[in-house]
Structures are given as C-alpha cells and as structure tokens.
C-alpha cells in the first residue's frame, strides 16, 4: 500500500492561518490502513486544529468528512454538494498525495495536503512501516530471492553488497538492514546462490519515473 504520515501540526497551522472554515477530508484506502488519514485521524486532526485556533483567539471551523477513496473521481464527486456555497476557504486532504490532486482537478478551491506520502510499503509490526518498492515499472525481484534491491538498497545496487555492508546493516545507518546481505542469505537458503554469480545487466529505467509521468491504459476495461 501507499504509506504516508501526517505533516507536523505547526506546518498545518501555518498553511491554514488565513482561513476561517475548511473541509477536512479523509480517505478509507491505504492511509486508513497505515493510520495516517482515515476517519479516526481526521477526527484527531480536526480537534487539534480547532483547539489550537481557539487558543489563538481566532477560531477555525473544521468540517470533517471521509471518502471511500480519493483516487477515484466517482468518490471525489461526492464532495460537490458540500462544497457548493458553504463558504469553505479550502479543502484539507488527508489522503495520499493523489487525493488533493484529484480534488484540485475537480473543484475551484485551494487544496492542501495534510500528509507526506512517503513510500510503497507494508507494516513490519504494529506502528512500524517500511519501504518495499519504488515502482520502477519492471519488477525484477525474482532474480534476488524476491527481495527488492532497487527500493531497499540505499544505492539501488543490482550487484551488491557494496563494501560498506557490515553486520547485516547498511553503511548509511544501523537502522537500515543491508538488503544485499538478506538477499545473500535468502539465496543460500534457497540453494540458488549461483544465480547471483553473473553480472546483473544494466537496468532500463524508461519504465520508471525517468521515462516521464506514467499512465496505464487498459483497453479491455475502458467504457
């Protein structure tokens, strides 16, 4: 899933400093799962903003709403009646950064992102998420025991580990596992170490962001 975290409250307060009334919109997709922008987090942020602004003697009216998803026009359209003539100064989106862009495309009102969209990843344990994929557009992890060296090696090495790998940790930080050590261990476990012997060829990044913004068109699904 897309993993995101909420921006610091100070940054958000600065964004909304000039507003009197905002619509705070959550999303029931990925950001609900990673506890960043679901109904619960909308409630918490809404209260925090109201309390902070009340203390400043400059109250802010925050209307809360959570959509099924914000990355689908079908759901974003549902905001239309709320935004029609209700005097909102801005929409604050608690979805991943796709959400605010879908809202901006549809409505002529300023939109602000409440989250920092951080990576494609998963939960390691309760409250801990890590990056697993960089959406390079041409998955090659079967060559590496199913582990991704593009997203998970600090240098995206395809022929690692580099000389900085020590005690299974990455040279960049003891907080980061050296994925190449894990790839090595896994290949040993699978009895496939010899697959790491040939020089892995230079990657074609044109399927990645480097080829420009991407789009998928599925003719079979188009209406």
């Amino acid at each position, binding site marked *: 899933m897309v993993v995101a975290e909420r921006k610091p409250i100070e940054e958000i307060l600065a964004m909304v400093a000039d507003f009197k009334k905002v619509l705070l919109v959550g999303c029931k997709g990925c950001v609900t799962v990673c506890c960043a922008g679901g109904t619960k987090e909308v409630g918490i942020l809404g209260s925090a903003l109201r309390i902070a602004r009340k203390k400043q003697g400059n109250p802010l009216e925050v209307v809360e709403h959570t959509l099924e998803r914000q990355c689908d026009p079908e759901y974003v359209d549902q905001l239309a009646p709320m935004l029609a003539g209700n005097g909102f100064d801005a929409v604050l989106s608690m979805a991943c950064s796709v959400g605010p862009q879908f809202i901006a495309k549809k409505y002529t009102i300023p939109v602000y992102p409440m989250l920092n969209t951080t990576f494609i990843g998963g939960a390691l344990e309760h409250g801990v998420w890590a990056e697993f994929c960089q959406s390079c557009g041409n998955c090659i992890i079967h060559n590496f025991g199913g582990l991704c060296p593009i997203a998970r090696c*600090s240098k995206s*090495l395809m022929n690692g580990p580099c*000389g900085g*790998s020590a005690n299974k940790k990455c*040279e960049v930080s003891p907080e980061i596992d050296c994925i190449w050590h894990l790839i*090595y261990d896994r290949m040993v476990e699978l009895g496939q170490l010899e697959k790491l012997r040939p*020089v892995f060829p230079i990657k074609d990044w044109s399927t990645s962001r480097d080829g420009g913004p991407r789009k998928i068109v599925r003719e079979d699904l188009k209406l």
Partner: protein
Amino acid sequence: MKAGSNLEKVFTQGHFAVTGELGPPRGASVEVIEKKAGYLRGVVDSINVTDNQTSVVRMSSVAVCKLLVDMGLEPNLQMVCRDRNRIAMQSDLLGAYALGIRNVLCLSGDHNRFGDHPQSKNVFDVDSMQLISIVKKLRDEGKMLSGQELEGVPKFFIGAAANPFGDPFEFRVTRLAKKIDAGADFIQTQCIYNMEKFRKYMHIAHEEGLTEKCYIMAGITPLKSVGMARYMANFVPGLDVPDYYINRLKGVDKKKQADEGIKIAVEQIQEVREIPGVKGIHLMAIEWEHKVPEILQAAGLLPRPSVN
C-alpha cells in the same frame, strides 16, 4: 597491452606496483594539488584522484587528473555512480581520455547522506559492476552503451575496488570474480588491517585462479595516531581494525605515534608482499601525502621502475 598506461606497463613487466592517492581540494586551488602531487612525484607509479570522496564536494576528479597529466604525472581517474547517470559517465570518460587520462577506477561511491550535501538527490543509474562493463564496452567494442559507434575509442586500463572486510565474507571473492568478469584489469582493496582475514580472502581468490586474471593491489592506509585508529575501527563501515594496532599505538608516547604508525604501515606492506597473488599496493596516506616517500623508502619500494 590494453591501454599502455604506465601502471599497466609496470604490471605487465612484472614489477610490484605502487599507487598513491590524492584528494582534490574543497576549492579551486591549484597550489594544493601541486603541493600534494610534489610529494608523490617519482615515488608512485600512478596516482588515484578521488571523486568527491565521502560525498563531500571537492574539485572535479577529471579536472585534477588533467592537472596531473600536465605536471607529467599519471592519474587514475576515480569515478563513482552516485552523481552521474550513464549519459554523463560516458561523456566524462570520453573527455577524460581526450585529456590524456588512461586509468579509470570504477566505484559505487559513498552514499550522499554522509557528505556535506545530504539534501542532494543521488543517481545510481548503474552500479560499479555495470560501470566497469561500460568502460570495457567503450574500449573493446568501440561502442557506446546505446550501440553507437565511437569516433575515437578510449583505451582505458580499468580498475575496481574490493573490500575483503565487508559482509558477508563468503560472498566477497564472488564479487571480485564478478568485477573481473565485468572487465576489471586491476583491483585496489580497501585498507587492510586484519591481515589474517586478508590472507584468507587472497587464498580463496588465488585458488579460484582470479589472481591470474587481474592485478590485485593491497590497500594500505598508515595510522597517524591512536585517535585515527579508533575512528577507523568504530566509524568507517566495512573496515576491520584489530585491537592489536590500537594497543600498539596506545603503547607509545603521543609524539611517537606517527612514527609507530609508519612502522606498522611498513610491516603491513612487507606482509602483503608475501601473499601470493598480491601484485602491488595502493597507499592511501589520507592528508599525509608528505609521508609517502618515507614509507615507501622504508618498505624498500624505491626507486620506482622506469618502464617503456
């Protein structure tokens, strides 16, 4: 002869080779380079010029190599994968050759989080192994990565680095073999302090016939003080400094630590010379270039052979 550089000739004529290292200045000063180069003149076979090492911005390695060429010295151009994509790499390689640079050392590069611009974007379009294969393709096929025929072929002597002390140890010789397959003609190792581990590494490499396929140079970095030894032991990932050296340096008077460090370096050079398959040393006297002649003299490696 692949490139005909001085370093390649020293190897092919059977001499024990010595390379030095020059870290470019954090500024535009030519005098700093002239001064450091002066210490290395006549005492090493060629000089590595580091490429923004530890991700700290310094004068361009290509530019410094060209300055060395103009001074009549032979440079080894270090090139890292952190800051250039394949377009910039090939372009710089062609330019470097046109400027008279004949040796190139291909490296992944330290991560930019270490340096003075941790906010920077990194590249890592290709890795060091793949960079080696690019230089080889330019040289042996006369073609760019795209398949484009070259107008003028850069005949580089291709180097790579190896760290026998990185983890997992069991995979380190395989990586060496991969670098040789990719096209490395010579290898410079990470600084060696754990001699036993290095012997083991070289033994496996020798058994696998790798020492016949490329010239392996043992990396030596003299320890200037016990403080430096401790720093290397604790803060440089993938370096292995046994307590033995730390205790030895601790055991002598502060003023004599530098001399002890030189003594250790000389002993290390003698030890690596005994190891089958070691064809030279790469002396990285970090901000201690002026001690290089003294160390090499004491190690019996002077004068350097003159080759043609």
